[in-house]
C-alpha cells in the first residue's frame, strides 16, 4: 500500500518535473526575446523593455500611458498606436478594431501587439504627460439633486499638470453593476493651479456604471485610481472674444477655464451661457457671480428652459440655443467653447454658425 502510494507519487512527480523543466528551458530559450528597444516619435524617447510582452503593458511599465477603457483585454479598441517599424502581421484579435485606412498606416492595437523585436512607434506628444494617480476622496457634495461634486486629493504621484478643460479617466472597481474594472472619462472642474487636487462634477445617469458607483457607493476617504490628463479641449491662446456654452455637468471644464483665466489675469471679453431645465438644476451660481465681480469683462448668463412657478425666475428663459441667438450678434471675432450632450452641442454649432463664428473657432467636448 505504502509502496504503491510512493510509486504513484514518484511517477506523477517524475512526469511533472520533466515537463516543468522542459517548459522552463523553453521559456528561457524559445520564449526569451531578450531586451528590445522601443523608439518613440523618431527617437525623442527610447525605452528598453523585456521582449515578448504586449506593447501596452511594456509602455505602462515605463510610465507611458495609452488610454484604454478595458485595461488590455482587447475589448474596447482604444489603445491604438502607430507602429512604424517592427510591426509584423496583424493578429486576428486586432482586426475587428482596425479600419482599412488605419491598416495602411500600420496602426496597431497595443494591448494585443507583442513587442518581439526593436520597434519604432508614434504616439501623441501629450501622452508623455499622462500618468496614473492614486487618489483619496477628500469631499463629496451635492451640487443639485442629481449632480455631485467629487474632490480627489492626489496621493501618488502628488501633482498633476493639466491644461484647464482637459479630462481624466476614472477607474471604477468591480461592484454589483460591473464584474470588471471599467474606465470613464470626466472633465476636471478644478483650476490647473491646484496641482494636488482634481475636482469632478458627476451627474447620476440611471444605471450608469460609473455614475451609480459615485452616487451610491463612493465615500469620503475611499481610494480611487485615475489617469490623465487627456484631451484637446482647452482655452486657445488668442485675443478673440469668448463664448462659453454648457449644460448640466458640462459646467466642469468651463469652470476650470474660468478659474484659470482669473488666475492668469486674462481680460478677454467672455460670456458664459449655462442652460438648465429649472432652478433646481442650477448650481455654482455664487461662484460664477463672484467671478463676474473679479473679471470685469466676464458675464454669466444662466437660462432656464422650463422655469417652475415657485422658482421666481427673472433671468433668461428658453432653450440655450434660443438665448444665444437672441443675445449674440456678429460674432466673427469670437471663439466658442461648448460642453454638454451631443444633441445640445450639435444644435449650438448651428446657431453659432448663424451668428458668424467660424467653424475652426468652435471647440467642444461632447458627452458620450
Amino acid at each position, binding site marked *: 500500500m505504502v509502496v*504503491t502510494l510512493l*510509486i*504513484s507519487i514518484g*511517477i*506523477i512527480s*517524475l*512526469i*511533472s518535473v520533466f*515537463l516543468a523543466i*522542459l*517548459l522552463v528551458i*523553453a*521559456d528561457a530559450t*524559445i*520564449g526569451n526575446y531578450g531586451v528590445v528597444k522601443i523608439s518613440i516619435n523618431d527617437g525623442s524617447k527610447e525605452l528598453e523593455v523585456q521582449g515578448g510582452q504586449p506593447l501596452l503593458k511594456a509602455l505602462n511599465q515605463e510610465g507611458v500611458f495609452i488610454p484604454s477603457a478595458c485595461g488590455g483585454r482587447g475589448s474596447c479598441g482604444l489603445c491604438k498606436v502607430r507602429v512604424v517599424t517592427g510591426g*509584423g*502581421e496583424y*493578429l*486576428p*484579435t486586432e482586426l475587428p478594431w482596425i479600419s482599412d485606412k488605419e491598416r495602411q498606416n500600420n496602426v496597431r492595437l497595443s494591448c494585443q501587439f*507583442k513587442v518581439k523585436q526593436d520597434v519604432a512607434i508614434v504616439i501623441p506628444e501629450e501622452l508623455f504627460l499622462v500618468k496614473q494617480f492614486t487618489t483619496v476622496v477628500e469631499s463629496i457634495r451635492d451640487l443639485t439633486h442629481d449632480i455631485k461634486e467629487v474632490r480627489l486629493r492626489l496621493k501618488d504621484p502628488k501633482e498633476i499638470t493639466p491644461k484647464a478643460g482637459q479630462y481624466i479617466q476614472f477607474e471604477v472597481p468591480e461592484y454589483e453593476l460591473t464584474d470588471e474594472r471599467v474606465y470613464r472619462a470626466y472633465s476636471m472642474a478644478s483650476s490647473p493651479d491646484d496641482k494636488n487636487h482634481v475636482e469632478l462634477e458627476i451627474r447620476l445617469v440611471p444605471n450608469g456604471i460609473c455614475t451609480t458607483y459615485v452616487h451610491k457607493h463612493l465615500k469620503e476617504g475611499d481610494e480611487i485610481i485615475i489617469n490623465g490628463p487627456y484631451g484637446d479641449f482647452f482655452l486657445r491662446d488668442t485675443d478673440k472674444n469668448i463664448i462659453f456654452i454648457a449644460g448640466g455637468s458640462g459646467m466642469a471644464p468651463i469652470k476650470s477655464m474660468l478659474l484659470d483665466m482669473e488666475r492668469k489675469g486674462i481680460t478677454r471679453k467672455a460670456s458664459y451661457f449655462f442652460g438648465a431645465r429649472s432652478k433646481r438644476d442650477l448650481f455654482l451660481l455664487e461662484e460664477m457671480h463672484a467671478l463676474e465681480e473679479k473679471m470685469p469683462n466676464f458675464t454669466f448668463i444662466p437660462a432656464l428652459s422650463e422655469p417652475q412657478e415657485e422658482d421666481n425666475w427673472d433671468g433668461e428663459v428658453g432653450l440655450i440655443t434660443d438665448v444665444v441667438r437672441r443675445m449674440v450678434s456678429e460674432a466673427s471675432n469670437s471663439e466658442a467653447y461648448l460642453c454638454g450632450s451631443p444633441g445640445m452641442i450639435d444644435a449650438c454649432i448651428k446657431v453659432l454658425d448663424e451668428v458668424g463664428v467660424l467653424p475652426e473657432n468652435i471647440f467642444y467636448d461632447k458627452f458620450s
Partner: protein
Amino acid sequence: MTDSLLPFAVFFASIFTGNILLTNYLGMCSFLSVSKELKTSTGLGMAVIFVMATTTPLNWIVYQYLLIPFGLEYLRFIVFIIVIAAFVQLTEMTLERYSEPLYQSLGIFLPLITVNCAILGVSLFMVIREYTLLTSFFFGLGSGIGWFIAIIAMAGIRQKLKNAKIPPGLEGPGITLVIAGFMAMAFMGFSGMIAIS
C-alpha cells in the same frame, strides 16, 4: 480484417462512423461557441487536428512505458491532462517564435483547446480500445479530421442561418444543438461501412 490494415480502418472510422463530435458529443463547448464563422472554425479545426494527432501517440508512449509497468493505469486521467497541457503550451511558444503565419492561424486557438474534452477523450478511447502506437496516431489524426469536418460543416450552415427566421426561443445555442443533432443523424448513414472497436 488483417492487422496491417487496422490503422487505416480506424482512421476512416474515426472520421465518419465514429466521429468523436457527432457520435460521442465530445468537444461541444468550443464547437458551439466558435462555429459562427467559417474562417475561425477552420483555424480551430486545424489546431484540433494537430493537437489530437500529436498528443495521442505521446500519451500512448507515457501510458505504455510509464504507467503500465508500475501498475498505475488509474493515474491516466491526470497524467494525460498534464501531458496535453504542457505539449500545447510548448507548441504555442514555438509557433509564436518561429512561424508567424501559423501562429496567426492556429496559435490563438491552442490555449482554447488545452482542456477540450475531445482531446482527452481520444487519449482515453485509445487506452480502452487497446490500440498500438501506429493505430493511436491514425486514431488521433482521424478524430481530429472528423472534428474539423463537423465544425466547418456547422459553420457553413450557421453562416447561412444568419438570414433565416428562427423562433426566438431557439436562437443561439438552441438551434445549433438541433442542427448538430441532424448532422449526427446524417453521419449515422455511414455506420456499417466500417466498425470501430
